[in-house]
């Protein structure tokens, strides 16, 4: 082959023998992809098994319980799915931000404050309006509050160039305390001694899917992540955000309204985090207690990176992660392993998935895909 072809000139004349070759390539390609996705999983399990054996635990039984509970038992699978709702929204929030080169690490507070305001208002709203209206308004409240909590970092970043890693982390620390203040002083349920908000009755929460315990929050999560994926991949708005993220100087040179886009990104990202908080309250928890902070962001961040910000891959990773956390609690209890072991499994998995991602990237670079 020669050094360069102005691509159109010769592309029509690929000989047919090459096509057959391509087909063989494609099969090989698919096999490799399979190997690359299953390989690290097995390697991770082997490493984690080794640790289990050292602890005197039968790894086969342990992992058997995880799968049995997280995937195969009906209520386990339902719990896995329900758990995915807020996590997918957090993932969508992170994808929007990271794609645009904005390090919104303030998701936890945006989530929490969204949750707190929804928990405070929903039980009151439901007294004056039909449940469906309350649900819609509550979701909007969550998103709005999340977005509001990012205004300062957004403006500082957009107009002053202040690094948003610092500001969003600060706002997270602040927001967690602020959420506590709100719950303890302002939104306290007068009927209990425990510092917590009023509780939204089970029948007023997001409807369950069919005859299961799966909250429809998972549908909100799926919709959000697919919409985000579509916006990022197919629309000019998404492309603009990606350009700002990939090379901000080029974005300025190209005349993109970088500051406005930055603010929009913050609003969307933080809004989705707030929406996640709303979904968690409306779909699962029903109220917020003081000192409550599930800190989803930290675990979702690596997942969206591993998925390379791809919506579909993210759904797969979030499903897997949700299954793992549901299943491993059960396995740990049955096998008498302290639950801390789940953290170790997670760590090993993330590292090996990271290695896979790197190998896959190298392979694709070599091929120029």
């Amino acid at each position, binding site marked *: *082959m*020669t*050094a*360069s*072809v*102005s*691509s*159109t*000139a010769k592309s029509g004349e690929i000989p047919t023998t090459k096509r057959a070759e391509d087909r063989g390539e494609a099969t090989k390609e698919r096999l490799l992809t399979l190997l690359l996705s299953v390989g690290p999983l097995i390697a991770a399990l082997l490493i984690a098994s080794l640790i289990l054996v050292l602890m005197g635990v039968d790894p086969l039984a342990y992992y058997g319980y995880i799968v049995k509970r997280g995937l195969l038992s009906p209520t386990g699978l339902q719990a896995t799915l329900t758990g995915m709702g807020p996590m997918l929204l957090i993932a969508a929030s992170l994808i929007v931000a990271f794609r645009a080169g904005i390090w919104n690490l303030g998701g936890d507070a945006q989530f929490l404050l969204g949750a707190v305001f929804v928990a405070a208002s929903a039980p009151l709203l439901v007294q004056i309006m039909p449940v469906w209206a309350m649900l819609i308004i509550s979701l909007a409240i969550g998103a709005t509050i999340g977005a509001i909590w990012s205004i300062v970092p957004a403006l500082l970043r957009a107009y002053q160039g202040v690094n948003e890693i610092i500001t969003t982390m600060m706002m997270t620390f602040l927001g967690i305390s602020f959420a506590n203040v709100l719950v303890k002083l302002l939104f306290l349920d007068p009927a209990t001694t425990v510092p917590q908000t009023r509780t939204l009755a089970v029948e007023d929460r997001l409807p369950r899917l069919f005859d299961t315990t799966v909250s429809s929050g998972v549908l909100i999560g799926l919709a959000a992540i697919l919409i985000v994926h579509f916006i990022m991949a*197919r*629309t*000019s*708005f998404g*492309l*603009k955000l*990606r*350009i700002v993220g*990939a*090379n901000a*100087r*080029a974005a*300025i*040179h*190209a*005349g*993109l*309204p970088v500051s406005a886009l930055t603010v929009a990104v913050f609003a969307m990202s933080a809004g989705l985090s707030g929406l996640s908080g709303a979904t968690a309250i409306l779909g699962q928890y029903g109220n917020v207690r003081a000192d409550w902070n599930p800190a989803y962001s930290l675990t979702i961040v690596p997942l969206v990176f591993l998925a390379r910000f791809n919506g579909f891959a993210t759904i797969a990773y979030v499903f897997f992660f949700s299954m793992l956390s549901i299943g491993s609690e059960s396995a740990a209890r049955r096998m008498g392993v302290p639950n801390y072991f789940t953290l170790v499994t997670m760590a090993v998995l993330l590292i090996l998935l990271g290695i896979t991602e790197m190998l896959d990237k190298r392979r694709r*670079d*070599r*091929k*120029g*895909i």
Partner: protein
Amino acid sequence: MPSQPIVSLKGVTKRFPGIVANDTVSIDFFPGEVHVLLGENGAGKSTLVSMLSGLQQPDDGEIHIDGARKAIQSPHHALSVGIGTVFQHSMLVPSLTLVDNVNLGGRWWQNPDRPAIAARMSETARSIGVDVTPMAVTSSLSLGEQQQAEIVRALMRGSRFLILDEATAMLTPKDAEKLGLLMRRLVSQGLAVIFITHKLNEAVAYGDRISVLRLGKKVGAIAPDQLKSLGPERVTQEIVRLMFGHSEDAAPSAPAEAMPQQNADLGGAVLEILALEVDDSAVPVSGVELKIRAGEIVGVAGIDGNGQKQLAEALAGQRPVRNGRIYLDGLPIEDMSVGDRRKRGLRYVTDDRLGEGTVGAFPVSINLLLKQIGDAPFWRSGLESPALIAANARRQVVEFDIRTPSIETPAGKLSGGNIQKLLLARELTGSARAVIFAKPTYGLDLQNIAASRRRIREAADSGKAVLVFSTELDELIELSNRIAVMSQGRIVGIVDNDQSARQRIGEMMSGVAK
């Protein structure tokens, strides 16, 4: 002539996805010679350099150093065997001073003697007749100044094998000449020099031996005795034949002093600049007055780093204007955003093609539309039309001869010249009222230079106002109706492009004439 080459390439091949950048290339580099490497954009010159400097490893073939086979495993290794390189794209750390850039490799615990190194640096710079400010932070310098600093740094390393990849691209002809003389002096001391350029006159003037690459293959060489015996005229013809694979008829004529028609049927003023002032810590711009009419090309001459970048960015809207006005078609635009100015028909072709001109990780097809994102027909109500985007890319790739494995290839992977073609393709299509070009042809090969200048001329002829910043006087003389000279942030004079222009500009630049 010494018989043993310092470095030999023996059948070296380097492949990148979709491309064979170097195809079984065999070349010997002898001490005491300036070896000129020529080839059109994307021919594989820089790839050869990256293998010689340890940045890339050949896929096939061997490299011999002093007659023995040796793999150049790393840049450190290359330096340690005496190979010093000035790369095509800056290899200075922007946040460090020039002195510290010279200092990168000392013993880690030692305290660098900065004043001493600065002194050495200034001295070396003087020896080649350029001026550097050793204590300046690199990012505050223009690309031209950075290039000079890199040459100085390479010389300070005392290499016995010096590679200069388009080192004259950003220099004024005068500085290029000084560098040429320096190369001659170095080889007379027994060094070997590889000199990559797109300017054939330089090649003929300073080279001892010439090798030509085309589509990754070495397609010909001119030995020293041939070079002497043939004479400049014949050599140039031969080179053009080798480079482009056909005889000189299709090749551009050497930059003829073809003056454009003076002020023939020019329209009204399109771009008007009044008492413009721009803040900058290094080179503030002040008192700029310019009027460019429809169909007119105004060139801005001057040594790089005299406020050209600041002025261009202020006009484009990338830098705030402190004082003064800019009118486009009679409308003040100095407070408008980059995007709004663009919508009114102002185009800016940057010279920083990697830093802001392209998004390296994005495909060629998107980079070609970087400034039209969201516009019909490529996007309809915000939704992209992949087929139209691809069709546009395919058309431009052919029209502007952008050498890329595919329109989906990340733009950053193209050769320097081809990235430049991409920028030009993007800016020269579509409608515009006024276009600002910063060094439009730097890094382009002969043919592409000719084609690009033709397009710039055509743009003006179709009624646009054109402002061209260039360090190459020849280019300005070939293109412009009038030429302004910029020095230390001011326009020190404007001359009509007539027979005496060259001399008067020279005087203004050296500060003789006021």
